[in-house]
């Protein structure tokens, strides 16, 4: 079973009418041909976290959630035993918690089902977390569980995410979201091959269609070309996915109707900053999969909170920083206790000016620092 959420009947009109968001989420952490060292529980955790988010926000999405196609290859269970593991939720069409694995035939069939639901004006949402490779054509691909299974087409069990990102708008979707949390490692065998990746292509687009389509995908990868993505050992989502989910609360614009809304342009340019301000993940490098994006809206946020991190200019002095207080001049202010190199806060995006003041265990001449509570995140440096 690959369909895990279904708002509307497969046949007949939508009630209520209007655009829907159709999601395709893949988490692959089991790779029998790559050995035990290649197993990644975090990739499956990332996919589960994204699905949980989509289900929780199903009515807040700018185009309400219409369906989720899901494939998981969980290294903690044997092939064929994969489950979603999110508990019960409504509009789940499955008879049990089983989900299909991330293998080539399933990706093709689930991908086709996902695309077949798209009507003009819908939103298409794609997320994949797995091992990844890149070829000389600067294409990034996520790997499936059956990678290397075909000895004559070793990398064919993969999805070229760049091509998906480029071609997805020809579905006439009003917005296309493509997120890849995977490495983009260069494989020498592929670099010498002019035909590049021979992986699964879900959408073909003619050059004429491409030249005239006026929607461009928002495509973001959690690694840069030729570089690695990172994930914690254990059951937590990869760092990019953590930052992406946090950004779904803080990469907001204020809309004329009084709603805060997450937008594509905010996401494109601010996830790295959010990762640093919310978690101290200064190493996270994010790349756009599509050079030009149309800036659609993803989801309305009732109570957005901006991550704020306060640090001393000389990070070594963080060891002597006892506490930090931030205040907007109204009320007593918020106190924070520093961790090794970060002192984290959260504030609403009021646009108000705040002042951050540090208290040290030794005599330092650090001055209070000002910042504005403006989206999407604030990195505040205390200077002498």
């Amino acid at each position, binding site marked *: 079973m690959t369909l895990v959420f279904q708002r509307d009947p497969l046949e007949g009109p939508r009630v209520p009418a209007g655009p829907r968001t159709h999601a395709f989420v893949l988490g692959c952490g089991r790779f029998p041909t790559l050995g035990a060292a290649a197993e990644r529980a975090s990739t499956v955790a990332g996919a589960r976290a994204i699905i949980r988010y989509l289900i929780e926000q199903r009515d807040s999405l700018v185009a309400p959630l219409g369906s989720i196609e899901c494939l998981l290859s969980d290294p903690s269970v044997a092939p064929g035993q994969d489950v979603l593991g999110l508990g019960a939720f409504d509009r789940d069409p499955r008879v049990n918690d089983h989900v299909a694995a991330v293998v080539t035939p399933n990706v093709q069939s689930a991908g086709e089902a996902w695309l077949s639901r798209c009507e003009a004006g819908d939103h298409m949402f794609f997320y994949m977390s797995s091992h990844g490779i890149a070829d000389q*054509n600067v294409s990034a691909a996520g790997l499936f569980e059956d990678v290397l299974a075909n000895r004559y087409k070793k990398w064919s069990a993969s999805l070229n995410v760049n091509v998906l990102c480029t071609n997805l708008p020809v579905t006439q979707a009003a917005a296309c979201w493509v997120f890849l949390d995977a490495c983009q490692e260069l494989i020498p065998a592929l670099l010498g091959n*002019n035909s590049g990746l021979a992986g699964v292509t879900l959408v073909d687009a003619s*050059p004429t269609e491409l030249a005239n389509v006026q929607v461009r995908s928002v495509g973001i990868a959690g690694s840069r070309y030729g570089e690695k993505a*990172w994930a914690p050992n254990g059951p937590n989502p990869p760092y990019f996915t953590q930052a992406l989910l946090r950004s779904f609360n803080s990469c907001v614009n204020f809309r004329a109707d009084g709603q805060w809304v997450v937008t594509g342009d905010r996401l494109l340019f601010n996830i790295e900053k959010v990762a640093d301000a919310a978690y101290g993940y200064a190493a996270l490098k994010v790349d756009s999969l599509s050079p*030009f994006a149309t800036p659609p809206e993803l989801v309305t946020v009732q109570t957005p909170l901006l991550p704020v991190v306060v640090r001393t200019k000389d990070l*070594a002095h*963080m060891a002597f920083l006892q506490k930090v207080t931030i205040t907007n001049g109204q009320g007593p202010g918020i106190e924070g206790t520093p961790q090794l*190199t970060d002192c984290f806060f959260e504030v609403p995006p009021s*646009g108000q000016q705040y002042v951050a003041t540090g208290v040290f*265990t030794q005599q330092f001449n650090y001055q209070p620092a000002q910042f504005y509570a403006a989206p999407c995140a604030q990195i505040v440096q205390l200077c002498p």
Partner: protein
Amino acid sequence: MTAPRDVQFIAPGNGAYRITVRGADPTSNATALSVAGEPVSLALTPGLYVAFVESLSSPGVTEREFRVDPGSQQSLELSLGGDPDQATGSNIARTRASAAPQVNLKDLREVLSHNLPGIGQNDPAAITRMLAKRADGSLASFVEAANSYLQSHTRTDPKPQAMKARAFSLGLSMNVSPDVRGGWRPAEIAVEQHEAAEGEVRLKLRSPNPRELSARRRLTVVVAGDLAWRTGLPLFPDGLWLTLRATSGPNGPDVVATRRPVNERTAVLVGALGRALPNEVTGILGAATGVGVDGIDSDGRNLNSKAMAALYDKGNDPWAAAAAALLLTRIGKSRNAIDWTMNLANRFEWLADASVAAAWAEVADPVGSPAEAEARSLKRLQTARGWGPPYFSASNALALQMLTSLALSASPEVRRGAKAEHGLWTRHGLRAIRGGAFLAWELPGNTLRKGKLPRATYNTIVVGEVCNAAVHAQVKTTSM
């Protein structure tokens, strides 16, 4: 409820700026686009606000707090000042592929055992636990912190070479025989040095002969011990600003070279290639062609004949015209200007960027069979590549996107040709330096790693040293 007042915002410069106003009352928040120095008005209720000004030509952002007072109904003019194009944050730092963070853990343990409260010299386990904790969260942030700690607290500098000033040079060359390999020779160019901020060098580069547009010139930057990098040098009629600043790179002090057309309308076009949102592009094109909002159809979506006529008149500045054509391509509207784009590419065949735009125009509304149009599109891209890398990053991205699509063509010949062409285009892409509207790429291997450029091939216009805070340079000025 107090009536809103019209607040007129005067942009900090003649570029394109996205102005976002936020106040304590979120219903008063607003965004507007200012192009080419045109003031914009927003109706705001009395209160305290912050205006954030984002440049579309660079990643720079400035902010300014202001108050709208109740009382008279006169509009309030607010000059935003502080051009974000000139802000420190607008430096387009290049990233070097080899910049892997490293830290000397042995030094770190020694330093921490002396200085960090709560961890004694005989408690290596505590240090190990702390290291593990950081590595679990973000290894690189830990490394950054640890290196900073080491640099400021140790008796032995852990990375002394990183602090040392480094020699650098900038040189120009031009291809005097494009059909033969090895035709690059020193290029003459008019160089004027202008007043700059402390520690910076600001030059205006102009063509020595405005009629000689097609000779391809390139700028090469070498910093001792690092990979040299190179970029095409567009000869805008009004010239090009070249600003040199110091930055801290992975191998020590490094030079950031920011390029910006002198003509502000051209700067708007070029900057918008990478940073403008599609819904802003029509307005930017209207402003950049000089017809402003009058050049936009009443539905706000298309350029009207007046604006198109202005575009046709851009033949004296082919780079600006190519930027306009690429912008139309970017937003899926190359169909609106097919003839103009084709003419531009035919007239300036040597300008790879115009050919890339024409490759998209060929298939936008195909004449003849789709396979014929795709073959012509491929030919345009082959021609473009034959003239060398394009000037704009956007051209490179659009060429690769079209080649990816052509590689799935129904025609086997087009398919085969597109795959081979894609491989050739990506050679530069693999070494591309991120950031900025202009394409730049690093040179492989040990080429030119001593910070000097050979006279036989380069006209060295700047030599100097870069330290962490400043660029110290001698400039070979030439007026023509």
